[in-house]
């Protein structure tokens, strides 16, 4: 169902804005917030129950990819929820790879040898790179599963092996959520690299993300950006200055705010969403402070 674009969202009134400088990344919230896991720190509170942000129709995904191609997009990301729950994920990845390098963010727990084979075939046939990002919160199974649910560690590590064995060089995405559990050990980045090497992975690729006060961790976060906090800061460095996110019902400014009315910039047209984005949410503080990007590099 198409939801009308709000004329004024109270949360954004008086908020500073980030300019839109260029179109670098298209994010596709393909499964909305539908996921087989229910992680304690999930940015958009995804889970197996009725998703609050619906799964996208394949036709809408195709329209977005076509429009992004015409607008000169540089890279495409599929996220959710869990993208591999979408019944058309493989053909859609194939179509995206015809247009641009494509990344899919997965929890790895529904990966099978057959899917990994299909991904390897897609990657080999494409002129552009296919990147698979597998989320893992700790190298320790018990700690990881405390966050991501029973059995999640074993299935994600199995997925990493399946992908590695097919030459797909997965990027393991970790958060700093559990870094306090390892006070005397190397930092998260080195801990994960060492762990991947211990699995026999010779080209370990690790991306570490900060923890955001968002989704299931949102309660209590109130600090917001204002003009004074941004004085002297180059807002063009923020992800919302060069990325747009397509989800059911509209185009949004930020991958982790997709679905929130105040972050919605258009009803569906990408080009109409190429306008400044309000830095209204407490999570904008984290981007400003850490300089993080959800992109691969």
């Amino acid at each position, binding site marked *: 169902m198409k939801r009308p674009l709000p004329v004024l969202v109270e949360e954004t009134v008086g908020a500073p804005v980030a300019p839109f400088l*260029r179109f670098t990344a298209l994010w596709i919230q393909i499964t909305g917030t539908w996921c087989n896991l229910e992680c304690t720190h999930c940015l958009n509170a995804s889970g197996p129950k009725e998703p609050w942000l619906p799964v996208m129709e394949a036709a809408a995904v195709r329209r977005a990819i076509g429009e992004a*191609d*015409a*607008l*000169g*997009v*540089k*890279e495409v990301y599929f996220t959710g929820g869990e993208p591999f729950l979408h019944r058309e994920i493989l053909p859609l990845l194939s179509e995206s790879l015809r*247009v*641009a*390098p494509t990344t899919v963010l997965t929890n790895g727990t529904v990966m099978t040898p057959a899917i990994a084979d299909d991904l390897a075939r897609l*990657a080999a046939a494409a*002129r*552009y*790179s*296919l*990147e698979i990002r597998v989320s893992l919160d700790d190298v320790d199974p018990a700690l990881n599963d405390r966050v991501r649910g029973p059995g999640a560690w074993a299935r994600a590590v199995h997925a990493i092996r399946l992908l590695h064995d097919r*030459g*797909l*060089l997965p990027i393991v995405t970790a958060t700093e959520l559990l870094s306090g559990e390892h006070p005397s050990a190397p930092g998260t*980045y080195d801990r994960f690299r060492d762990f991947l090497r211990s699995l026999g992975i*010779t*080209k370990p*690729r690790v*991306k*570490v993300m900060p923890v955001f006060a968002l989704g299931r961790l949102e309660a209590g976060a109130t600090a917001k950006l204002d003009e004074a906090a941004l004085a002297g800061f180059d807002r063009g460095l923020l992800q919302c200055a060069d990325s747009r996110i397509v989800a059911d019902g509209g185009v949004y400014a930020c991958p982790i705010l997709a679905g929130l009315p105040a972050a919605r910039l258009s009803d569906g047209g990408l080009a109409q969403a190429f306008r400044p984005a309000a830095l209204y949410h407490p999570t904008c503080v984290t981007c400003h402070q850490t300089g993080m*990007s959800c992109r*691969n*590099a």
Partner: protein
Amino acid sequence: MPQRLTTGAMGARTRNGATPEYRRIAVFGGVYNNAPALAATLDDVRGRDVDAVFCLGDLGGFGPHPDRVFPLLREQGVLVLQGNYDEALASGRTDCGCGYTDPRDNYFARVSYAYTFSRTSAANRAWLATLPGHRRAQLGAHRVLMCHGSPRVINEFLWESATPDGLLRTFLRERHADVMLCTHTGIKWDRSLDGAGRVVNVGVIGRPENDGTPAVWYTLLTATPDVEVQFVPVRYDHEALAREMEREGLPVEFAETIRTGWWTTCLENLPAKERARGRF
């Protein structure tokens, strides 16, 4: 005084009094303090009957003795534009602006930049500040736009497997060019856009391109009815350079790359296809 390679822009014909026009040019990027490779490249170019030689920036980083590359470029009339390293050195920034996001990549970038910054003379830094960010030329009938990373961002990585045709068409259309030349990634490639233009990443001469050989590469472009692109390998005394890097206390990983041709650092922003081709 060394013989100049070409007559450069001064000897080029001009069209409408503005854009210099050439028949054949040599173009390279990423000198990375590698004076021996630069000298070997310029020696090789001397026999190629070119009208001009261009360098697309990043004179510093990685190798030893940054001040040694400047006289070679200036005395031999190379037309240089500014890369992110040059911009950083010229403006006194505390980091190279290479555009890395990975901690390991950034560690080695900091080591390299600190070495280069402390050994680049004030006069050479001032010269870097005078360099243009882009250059335009006419190659036969073709309008050529030269940049370091991309026309829009000085440190944008345009990898072969991560740069869509649609983006390249947009660059050419918006910048009114038929041919675009860039560098920054360290690995060369060439793409024809089905009648919509041509884009060439000209590669770098400062370090090998992660292919297991110590050779470095530059590019020759010749005006024909189309544009002929030829990638030229250059061999030089890489072992002597590696020993010099070790004497200077640069990371052993850097010298290993010079010797083996395999990248050991700054690997983490490689897209999957490029990463898969390397050893590490």
